């Protein structure tokens, strides 16, 4: 704090506003002797014009204003100074002749002045009052600036936590650092899947935060461009600071050091700093890769600067951990799903089969779609199903239902009994879960099928003449223990194709499912005979942009 006290008491540019030439000269000379720079004005209009026309560098920091001026009162001048956002915090010290009432002094202070001195004024008293006023005004401006920067820190932190993937995160981190420090900034981090090193560079935010009197408005984040970089860059940076430790660490690098550690690419990349570079590294967990933020070293001169940037780096590291956890959970659920589902379809003479399974891309949307093809004493049992719900629980229930189906199926139960058994199991073990299942038993010989459908999208049959038909007989979904009707038999000719699917393939929110089913049926009519190609055509036509799991099982009777 002694640094601040020292800076706050430093000399300043002071405006002396008085129509009396002699008084102006005397006050001016006292101030000059004390080291201040003095600019003079002889009346209200001139004084206000002087302030309005001054550049940021030359703007006076304080005004000594005589109360009695020819064109307006000193009080009015003070009010106008305080009303202009640019000079709102500029201290005004009134001076006046001794023959004034206390009420006048009070009025001056009420109307915005910071001090009021009456003649005769001792030079020491004036200088001390000037210094005190400057100290207060500077401390206040510093506090306001810090408040703005903390608001910027909050806004940058939110942006970083709101990033949905590695690229967006790195861009938000660079943009946040650039806005916070009013400097070009570079952010470097490992993607959530740990496979790519991402580097983002952002240009300095326009001077909003650094202006002396800008209102408390947080500027919009500057745009940042992201590219991939060499995986070793982060390791090399860690050697300069932080090492293997956790927490944050800061180091200053020369321009050459920075350029050697973080090579640029043809588009410029990380070479955005005019001189020395301030680098902050933050790591929240032992063994995890850190996040690096780099800014122009000159912006780290103040006491608060390093602290603010370190806090941002810490927030970035935490946000990245959250992203990484999500990514890891997503990968885990995907692995579970794949474990639960058969990776190979049984080879069955007389039946050709193909399957497509696309889990939802978005972590939150992974569901409980499943399929099965299993030989039973009565023939080949095809199954497709959908557990209501998403994420880990749905995937777990899916595994349980599928295993139970296999267990009951190899015991030789007919399709309707299988549904009854699954229903009872579900109600007992998973009381508030519903599952739709469609079973198609293909009798050995491949000329007769039995369909038992519990609330699922009906199977689609394509006959040898190319016509298509949904086999719509069905019962209620599982989970309610309602009675299921017996399976419906259908005679099928050689060359027929049966399609089992989940609603993830065709459902469009807002669109009637019936319409989507009609569209599918139309497309199947003209689709290839070969099952692999057929599945691909259906996925290309309907599967793009869908957010839910998609499962598709096709069988052709040879």
């Amino acid at each position: 704090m002694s640094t601040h006290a020292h800076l706050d008491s430093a000399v300043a540019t002071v405006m002396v506003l008085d129509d009396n030439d002699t008084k102006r000269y005397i006050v001016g000379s006292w101030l000059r002797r004390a080291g201040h720079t003095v600019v003079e004005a002889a009346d209200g209009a001139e004084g206000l014009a002087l302030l309005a026309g001054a550049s940021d560098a030359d703007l006076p920091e304080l005004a000594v204003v005589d109360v009695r001026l020819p064109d307006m009162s000193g009080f009015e001048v003070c009010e106008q100074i305080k009303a202009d956002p640019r000079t709102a915090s500029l201290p005004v010290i009134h001076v006046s002749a001794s023959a004034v009432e206390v009420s006048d002094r009070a009025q001056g202070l009420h109307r915005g002045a910071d001090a009021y001195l009456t003649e005769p004024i001792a030079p020491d008293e004036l200088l001390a009052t000037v210094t005190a006023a400057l100290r207060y005004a500077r401390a206040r401006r510093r506090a306001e600036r810090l408040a703005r920067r903390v608001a910027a820190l909050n806004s940058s932190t939110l942006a970083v936590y709101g990033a949905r993937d590695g690229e967006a995160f790195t861009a938000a981190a660079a943009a946040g650092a650039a806005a916070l420090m009013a400097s070009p900034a570079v952010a470097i981090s490992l993607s959530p899947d740990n496979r790519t090193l991402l580097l983002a560079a952002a240009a300095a935010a326009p001077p909003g935060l650094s202006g002396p009197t800008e209102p408390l408005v947080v500027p919009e984040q500057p745009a940042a461009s992201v590219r991939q970089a060499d995986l070793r860059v982060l390791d090399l940076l860690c050697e300069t600071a932080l090492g293997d430790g956790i927490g944050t660490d800061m180091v200053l690098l020369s321009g050459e050091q920075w350029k050697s550690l973080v090579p640029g690419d043809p588009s410029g990349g990380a070479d955005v700093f005019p001189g020395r570079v301030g680098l902050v590294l933050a790591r929240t967990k032992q063994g995890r890769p850190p996040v690096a933020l780099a800014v122009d070293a000159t912006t780290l001169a103040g006491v608060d600067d390093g602290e603010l940037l370190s806090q941002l780096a810490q927030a970035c590291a935490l946000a990245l951990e959250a992203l990484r956890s999500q990514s890891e959970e997503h990968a885990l659920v995907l692995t579970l799903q794949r474990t639960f589902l058969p990776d190979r379809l049984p080879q069955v003479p007389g039946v050709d089969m193909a399957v497509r399974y696309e889990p939802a891309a978005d972590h939150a949307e992974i569901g409980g779609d499943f399929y099965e093809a299993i030989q039973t004493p009565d023939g080949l049992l095809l199954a497709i199903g959908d557990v209501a719900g998403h994420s880990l629980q749905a995937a777990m229930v899916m595994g349980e239902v599928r295993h139970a189906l296999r267990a009951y199926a190899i015991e030789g139960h007919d399709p309707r009994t299988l549904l009854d058994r699954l229903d009872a199991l579900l109600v007992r073990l998973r009381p508030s879960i519903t599952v739709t299942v469609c079973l198609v038993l293909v009798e050995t010989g491949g000329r007769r099928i039995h369909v038992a459908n519990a609330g699922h999208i009906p199977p689609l049959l394509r006959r040898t003449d190319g016509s298509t038909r949904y086999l719509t007989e069905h019962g209620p979904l599982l989970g309610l223990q309602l009675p299921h009707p017996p399976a419906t038999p259908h005679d099928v000719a050689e060359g027929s194709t049966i399609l089992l699917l989940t609603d993830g393939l065709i459902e469009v929110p807002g669109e009637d499912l019936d319409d989507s089913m009609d569209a599918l049926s139309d497309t199947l009519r003209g689709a290839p005979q070969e099952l692999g190609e057929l599945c691909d055509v259906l996925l290309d036509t309907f599967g793009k942009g869908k957010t839910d799991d998609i499962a598709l099982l096709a069988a052709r009777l040879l």
Partner: protein
Amino acid sequence: MPDRALVVTADHSPSGAVVLRLEGVLDHLTAARFRRTVEEIPLRAESPLVLDMSRLSFCDSVGLTELLLAHRRARTASTSVLLVGVSRELGHLLELTGVDRVLTAGEGPVGGPGDGSRPARE
């Protein structure tokens, strides 16, 4: 209202039935909100719980499950759930999944915001 939200308003019709109006989306994201609202409704025997679905734009399988759970709760209280204002899309979903065998849909005592209506907006 963001397009993936659900708003549930409760009215008490003069006939004694409780009418819950659903507006928005009933899916895995809003299911918990719907369930909480239903759990707060005191159910009286013989006095049906009417669910006005006319302003519901989308319902998924989790939403269906919630409707079924509401039905189960009503049954325990010796009453039932009646769906009114069922859209064509929702009707197809109910038929496809066989839920139409459990939940009755039709014209019912859709009470307007008359005397004693108490919006239970969440």
